[in-house]
């Protein structure tokens, strides 16, 4: 791992929460996404957020960065109420947050190198030499130093995710939000990314929140797992604890069963009725 360890002051995970969500309520259109969600992310921890597809994990991250305002409840990041921040203060907060988009969201007009350099160029007046070194270090960490000159359209999906990852961490922010960082990675890349997340956390004390579905991977990095379903927090604990916890939620979710309290189907009218069988059956 070539990650530079100059700022090696090892942060002790302190007890106070970097992210604090209280009674979060959100609806998008007519759909209730969160219905009283409470959640704490301790400083210096790696926290995983899990939940069935479409429960609002991405929506939760959007709340943390102020892209979305809650209908009720509070979202505090580093002690600041995100929804109440002015535009300027919000941008100042975002400078300290790295965000990995679920769909990578690379800037298509810029090369891989320039994509990773983008946040640095905007906010830090660095000499070109130093900037180049930092960007190449981050690209090396995700195994794509050789791809620095390519354009985003020339990348595969998994490569694009790793570039997006490099861009999210280039600033060594205080908080990194990863939206599904493991999707589309081969086992080797997956291992490297896991090591990267761990190193960033251990050496720089960066707090990480990762949304992911891969329990095996989460077990290797996460200190704590939150399971969200039906707009609420339904289970929490250390990954190993949670996998063996005997609640209907965890049993069903980690067992991958279709029936149980966690709905697999998006809300829909009765299947038979919609297919037109209901009348004929009688």
């Amino acid at each position, binding site marked *: 791992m070539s990650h530079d360890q100059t700022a090696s002051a090892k942060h002790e995970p302190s007890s106070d929460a970097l992210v604090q969500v209280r009674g979060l309520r959100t609806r998008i259109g007519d759909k209730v996404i969160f219905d009283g969600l409470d959640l704490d992310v301790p400083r210096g921890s790696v926290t995983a957020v899990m939940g069935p597809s479409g429960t609002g994990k991405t929506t939760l991250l959007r709340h943390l960065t102020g892209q979305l305002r809650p209908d009720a409840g509070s979202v505090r990041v580093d002690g600041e109420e995100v929804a109440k921040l002015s535009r300027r203060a919000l941008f100042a907060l*975002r400078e300290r947050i790295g965000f990995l988009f679920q769909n990578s969201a*690379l800037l298509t007009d810029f090369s891989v190198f320039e994509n990773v350099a983008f946040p640095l160029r*905007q906010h830090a007046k660095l000499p070109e030499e130093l900037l180049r070194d930092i960007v190449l270090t981050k690209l090396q960490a995700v195994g794509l130093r050789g791809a620095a000159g390519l354009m985003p359209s020339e990348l595969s999906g998994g490569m694009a995710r790793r570039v997006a990852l490099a861009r999210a961490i280039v600033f060594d922010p205080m908080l990194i939000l990863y939206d599904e960082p493991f999707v589309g990675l081969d086992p080797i890349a997956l291992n490297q990314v896991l090591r990267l997340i761990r190193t960033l956390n251990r050496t720089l004390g960066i707090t990480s929140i990762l949304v992911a579905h891969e329990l095996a991977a989460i077990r290797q990095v996460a200190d704590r797992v939150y399971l969200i379903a039906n707009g609420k927090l339904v289970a929490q604990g250390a990954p190993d604890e949670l996998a063996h916890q005997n609640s209907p939620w965890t049993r069903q979710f980690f067992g991958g069963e279709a029936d149980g309290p966690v709905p697999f189907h998006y809300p829909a009218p009765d299947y038979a009725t919609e297919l037109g069988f209901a009348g004929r059956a009688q």
Partner: protein
Amino acid sequence: MNANLRRHWLLQGIVSLGECGIFFVAVLGALPKSLRYWRELCRQVWFVGAMSLVIVMVCGLFVGMVLALQLYYTLSIFGGTAALGTVVALSLFRELGPVVTALLVAGRAGTAVTAEIGLMRATDQLDAMSMMAVDPLAYVASPRFLAGVIAMPLLECVFNAMGIFGGHLVGVSWLGLDNGTFWGNMTSTVTLHGDVLDGLYKSIVFGGVVSLIAVFQGYTAPPTSEGVAYSTTRTVVFSSIVILAFDFVMTAFMT
């Protein structure tokens, strides 16, 4: 936004107009910050200006040539063909230069800007920028708006020059007017303040209008392929209508 308000097309139009007004203020507000991204501004001026140069030059040439032909015919009825240079230049400076250039730029560069920004929205690039604490209004919208205001008058000058050259080509080289009469009458009648600058003012306003519409349509395009396609079309339609309407109003006030 109130869903009922959205239903009637007239109300919908008024609501969009209001949104565009608010957007305009936001873009203006982001202008000072966008000066930090002067590289981006240069890139956009180059994009709008240089990319539209060929089409503006070719069209200017043909418009000047056809003007000379038509006006020569009209003037010859009254025996006033000596005034050909003057009327060609006046038509170009006061009217055709600003209007035709604006229409061409709307079609050539406005659509590209709308499609580009719409696609950036659809692929989350604008969100990604704002997540990296870079205001997309300052980085994407304002430079493109300003680029239109800067490039349009420059293109208009090129258009006029090519138009007069075309008029000269037809009037002097082909129809056999006297070269000295052509230039002499023109330079003694056309005034800088009344004619050339008035046209230039029009051009600056049209530049602002066209690029505002293009950026607004792109910024508010629904993030779908159909949404971007419709927004691109709307850029051309709205720009054309607004250019011609503004042209009438400005001409009425200027003369």
